[in-house]
């Protein structure tokens, strides 16, 4: 059976073997439209590849280790990265390679191509999910084409596709992917056309940019937009873009450049051409029998159809979070802009807000003013939480983007090797912890301090200890997490530091590989022209890694100020003996503020032994995600609130619902971290890597399944937590 079909050899019966995209191109070519020369790699090639290499079996292991319903998007992204890495690491079997190489070589050995996904069923009018799978433009050379075919195959399992697994009917045994290898046409002007506007069924829409249309499709270049009457093709309106950028071919892929001045003032299409593009959509519609959305390009004044698919409107309910996750995929340029905003505007803004709140002398406020203050602080905090969600969370994609590019280039055995290039970049939480460790060192030097701390007489400690404590509290005392503040109780904090003092300091660098060496090798893969891009990408990824933790710390400082005002209010209420006194205002506010903070409560029932039952259930081995390599055994400390945190003992394992950087001051004492929230690049995982301790995230219901004092084993290599001893 032929595994590669040229467009003119394709008939209707091939549709399911070559996917919607390939089929549409073949039909358009047959009807006389200008279509780039293309070769369709059939689904049998994918099947052969995943069967004969054993990849299909590996995917079973990877995809189904946890139920999808228990996975957050970040875990799904991690899973997709692991699968992608399997495809990167698994070469084509020689027989398959031979079969694909020959037809590709006769057409494209010297011509640049685009390599596009063409999943069967994806483009049927019921399930059109543009952008879930990957396509690559301007790929040159046979080896590179073959490699990108594998990447397109891998994108059958992209995080985006996995989010829509139910709609797509994703199944390791059945799902498959065809690929279109298409001659690259470097059009001067490109765009998309909607035969029927997604927002108005009596209209059509044309969008156009200068250069390649990849820039339009991924949102980096703003298009001019025309609305037409769907029946007459008459132009109803034209909305010009701020024409600033153009996507052009670069030696490897594409590059964003500034648009030259004369073009900025001129629309990419003349009215006559808008009509010609509209006609293309109508022709495709009559060919396929339903309104189409098509990509096109003008090359030397000739209009070419690049692809066409049926228009579908995805009805997004407001509860569907998936469009938000899809929006987290940001381009390099978008991330660059975000970084500037976060570093120059948002972090200084958060610092100022927290500082200004800190100056207010809360005890001096009257009850009613304090009530106002609580309300205002909580409003301000909420606004910053919104900003955090809008700008800071998407910036975390910087490290993901880097990870993907790193893996493509380096093909590492460990798909998360890239994280070791990002760690150790001077996070605020690590600086805070170092101050505590230094304070512990001071206490250790003079044993008389120990007695003072144990008796709860911190004020009697040596002056340098008091000074050290003040330094920590001045900088970080207001740092809060959901349930408390670092500086809420000095004596308890001192006791914690005493714990650190009673054990020799641990080396903080147990990271795998030598980051310096890895960095050198990574950079050496870029030629001179691209070096500055590579350096900027690495720098951006490091900022993304560091800020992921840091911006939370600044947000936590604002939360700390909310809590400080709430504590003051609570203190006053407790002092009052009559409940009907005029503290009601504060009381109500406190309730309002507290009910807004989602607090994870342990499942009470689970903690009581089921006495009447004749069976009892206990977790023995729980699966999570391997988020920090290494193995540790020790007693669990399940942290639900401040008291568990401050009574943390050296060598215990931190078990938590969701690690917040405000809590990680105990990590220098911890021998491992276990967290319910999942992901390789979340706070718990990041801080664990900084200290070189094992970490397992994504452990379902961790704080209920594990109890404080349980003897547990944390396997950070495999992502497993074992509860109890090995004996029966």
């Amino acid at each position, binding site marked *: 059976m032929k595994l590669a079909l040229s467009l003119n050899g394709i008939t209707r019966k091939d549709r399911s073997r070559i996917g919607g995209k390939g089929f549409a191109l073949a039909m358009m070519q047959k009807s006389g439209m200008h279509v780039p020369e293309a070769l369709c790699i059939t689904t049998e090639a994918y099947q052969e590849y995943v069967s004969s290499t054993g990849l299909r079996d590996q995917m079973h292991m990877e995809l189904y*280790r946890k139920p999808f319903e228990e996975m957050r998007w970040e875990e799904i992204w991690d899973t997709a990265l692991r699968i992608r890495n399997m495809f990167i690491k698994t070469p084509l079997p020689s027989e398959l390679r031979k079969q694909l190489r020959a037809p590709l070589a006769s057409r494209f050995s010297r011509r640049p191509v685009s390599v596009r996904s063409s999943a069967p069923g994806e483009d049927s009018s019921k399930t059109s999910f543009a952008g879930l799978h990957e396509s690559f433009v301007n790929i040159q050379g046979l080896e590179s084409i073959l490699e990108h075919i594998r990447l397109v195959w891998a994108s059958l399992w992209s995080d985006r596709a996995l989010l829509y697994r139910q709609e797509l009917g994703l199944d390791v045994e059945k799902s498959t992917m065809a690929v279109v290898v298409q001659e690259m046409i470097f059009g001067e002007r490109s765009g998309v056309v909607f035969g029927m506007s997604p927002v108005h069924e009596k209209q059509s829409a044309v969008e156009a940019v200068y250069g390649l249309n990849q820039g339009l499709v991924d949102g980096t270049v703003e298009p001019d937009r025309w609305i037409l009457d769907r029946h007459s093709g008459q132009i109803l309106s034209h909305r010009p873009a701020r024409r600033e950028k153009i996507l052009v071919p670069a030696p490897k892929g594409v590059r964003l450049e500034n648009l030259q001045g004369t073009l900025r003032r001129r629309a990419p299409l003349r009215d006559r051409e808008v009509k010609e593009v509209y006609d293309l959509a109508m022709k495709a519609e009559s060919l396929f029998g339903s309104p189409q959305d098509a990509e096109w390009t003008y090359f030397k004044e000739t209009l070419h159809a690049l692809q066409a698919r049926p228009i579908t409107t995805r009805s997004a309910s407001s509860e569907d979070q998936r469009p938000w996750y899809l929006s987290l995929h940001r381009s390099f340029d978008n991330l660059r802009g975000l970084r500037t905003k976060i570093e120059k505007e948002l972090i200084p803004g958060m610092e100022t807000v927290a500082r200004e709140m800190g100056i207010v002398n809360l005890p001096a406020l009257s009850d009613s003013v304090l009530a106002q203050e609580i309300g205002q602080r909580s409003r301000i905090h909420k606004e910053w939480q919104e900003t955090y969600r809008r700008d800071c969370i998407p910036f975390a994609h910087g490290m993901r983007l880097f990870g993907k590019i790193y893996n493509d280039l380096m093909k590492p055995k460990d798909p998360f090797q890239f994280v070791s290039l990002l760690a150790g970049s001077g996070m605020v939480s690590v600086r805070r912890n170092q101050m505590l460790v230094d304070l512990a060192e001071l206490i250790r030097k003079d044993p008389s301090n120990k007695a003072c701390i144990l008796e709860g007489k911190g004020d009697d400690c040596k002056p340098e200890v008091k000074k050290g404590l003040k330094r920590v509290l001045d900088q970080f005392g207001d740092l809060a997490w959901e349930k408390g503040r670092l500086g809420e109780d000095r004596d308890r904090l001192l006791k914690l530091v005493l714990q650190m003092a009673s054990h020799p300091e641990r080396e903080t660098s147990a990271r795998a590989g030598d980051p310096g060496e890895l960095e050198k090798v990574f950079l050496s893969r870029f030629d001179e022209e691209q070096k500055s891009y590579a350096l900027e990408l690495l720098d951006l990824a490091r900022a993304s890694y560091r800020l992921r933790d840091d911006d939370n710390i600044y947000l936590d400082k604002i939360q700390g100020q909310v809590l400080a005002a709430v504590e003051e209010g609570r203190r006053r209420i407790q002092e009052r003996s009559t409940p009907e006194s005029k503290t009601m205002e504060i009381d109500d506010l406190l309730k309002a503020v507290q009910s807004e903070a989602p607090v994870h409560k342990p499942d009470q*029932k689970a903690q009581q032994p*089921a006495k009447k039952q*004749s069976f009892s259930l*206990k977790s023995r081995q729980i699966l999570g995600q391997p988020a920090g390599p290494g193995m540790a055994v020790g007693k669990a400390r399940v942290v639900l609130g401040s008291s568990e945190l401050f009574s943390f003992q050296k060598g215990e394992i931190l078990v938590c619902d969701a690690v917040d950087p405000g809590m990680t001051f105990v990590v220098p004492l911890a021998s491992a971290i276990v967290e319910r929230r999942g992901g390789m690049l979340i706070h718990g995982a990041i801080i664990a890597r900084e200290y070189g301790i094992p970490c397992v995230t994504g452990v379902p219901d961790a704080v209920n399944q594990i109890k404080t004092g349980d003897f547990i084993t944390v396997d950070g290599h495999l992502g497993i937590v074992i509860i109890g001893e090995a004996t029966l």
Partner: protein
Amino acid sequence: MDKDLTKIKRDLKKLLQSQPLAVLATQNRGQPYASLVAFASSDDLKSLYFATTRSTRKYANLSGDSRVAVLVDNRSNKASDFRWAMAATATGKAKEVGPVERKSVLDLYLAKHPHLKDFVHSPTCALCEIRVQTFFVVTRFQSVMEVHVRR
């Protein structure tokens, strides 16, 4: 957890009823020994039953040490097992079924294995009960839960 227990008991029951055979582990002076047996399970999941002739090695082992482990699983020997297959290891003690319960146990056992009628009625055959202490239930390759039986 109550909900989880109900679910896992339901799954366990389904598994025990769907599988005719189990691997029985016994030991003799520290030497483990595994054998395949046709088994049945009580409705309350607290007992497993199997039959063996008295001349077998497993019977001799049981006479020396009544502690056993039994493995029941529904694998299909394909990669998809790593997602779908369930395995349960039961630990407990085995003893021969006494004359009082023999009739009801035989009914239960032969309802599942009617073709073993002649075998179990042979005077050389012993009908045994394993009183389960704990089930170790493995799903998704590595997820392990313990179901402890209280008596």
